């Protein structure tokens, strides 16, 4: 049976101290990797006979607007189907140049997930075969899940339906 401790030791043995921030929120091993090493880490997790993380469950991004230089975090969730162990690791990138290597060569499942991450956060996955919007309309020229947009003012009084595509007071 694979334990978090074993995975962590194996990773440190292979990559040394470039992997940082090891923690186990809710029992799930989480760590941070440098962004140009993301493919190497994934390849190691995939290929190693004992680790065998051959299933990418999820891939998404988080926007930390106040963390200068590392605003966007791309999070990978991996699953070992044999031992039923899950891990997750993050890769940080700046918002001015949000370039991350694509994982599509390793996991086919990453294709649409990366497109979705590009769609909502604008992460540019280098080497992706078809990086275009998947859920939003193609004409959209902004990335809606970035925290660039102010929260709504609760005291706002201009909530006229006419401004929101509905004329009159009753429809």
């Amino acid at each position: 049976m694979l334990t978090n401790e074993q995975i962590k030791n194996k990773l440190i043995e292979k990559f040394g101290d470039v992997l940082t921030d090891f923690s186990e929120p809710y029992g799930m091993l989480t760590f941070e990797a440098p962004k140009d090493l993301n493919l190497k880490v994934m390849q190691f997790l995939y290929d190693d006979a004992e680790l065998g993380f051959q299933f990418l469950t999820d891939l998404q991004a988080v926007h930390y607007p106040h963390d200068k230089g590392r605003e966007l975090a791309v999070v990978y969730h991996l699953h070992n189907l044999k031992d039923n162990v899950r891990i997750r690791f993050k890769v940080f990138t700046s918002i001015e140049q949000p370039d991350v290597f694509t994982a599509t060569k390793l996991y086919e499942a990453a294709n649409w997930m990366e497109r979705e991450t590009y769609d909502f956060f604008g992460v540019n996955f280098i080497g992706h075969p078809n990086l275009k919007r998947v859920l939003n309309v193609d004409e959209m020229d902004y990335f809606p899940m970035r925290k660039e947009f102010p929260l709504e003012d609760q005291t706002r009084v201009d909530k006229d339906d006419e401004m929101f595509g509905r004329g009159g007071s009753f429809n």
Partner: protein
Amino acid sequence: MPTLTSRAKQVDRRPMSLAEKLYLPAIFKGMAITMIHVFKKKATINYPEQKRPFSPVFRGLHILNRDEEGRERCTACGLCAVACPAEAITMEGAERQPGEEHLYREEKYAAKYEINMLRCIFCGLCEEACPKDAIYLSETFAPSNFNRASFIYGKEELRIPHPKEDPEGYKKALGNRAKK
């Protein structure tokens, strides 16, 4: 190829026996299940004639409550409109004039109270927000209609029948939902 999981099962690919090759036992087995279901109790509820009882927590159309003397409870504080996630409630408050004490319980009342049923999601947050128990969600669902304007429910549609003038209607509308 190594198995991907530890729970993989080998598929049984032995040739079929004579009984299996005939297929008839399997067909009769299936037909028997069909026949059993013919004689079972029918699941269908004939909707317009028969009505299915709603769950006690079902949230349907809103009702603007009155107290026992028929005075409106709503004070137009606006808490329901703030709580509404779909922003479907609009209201206008007005001050109670002398001589209107039998109509409104407090000094302030809602002159206009509208719920846009097109936008309402029947979440019940207005009921939870109301400090005066003036609004609650009843056990009737909103009827469908052909034009949009009829979905704006004003005070006339929302108000509970007067307990003195129409005690039966009041009781019926009250149900067992309104807080006492």
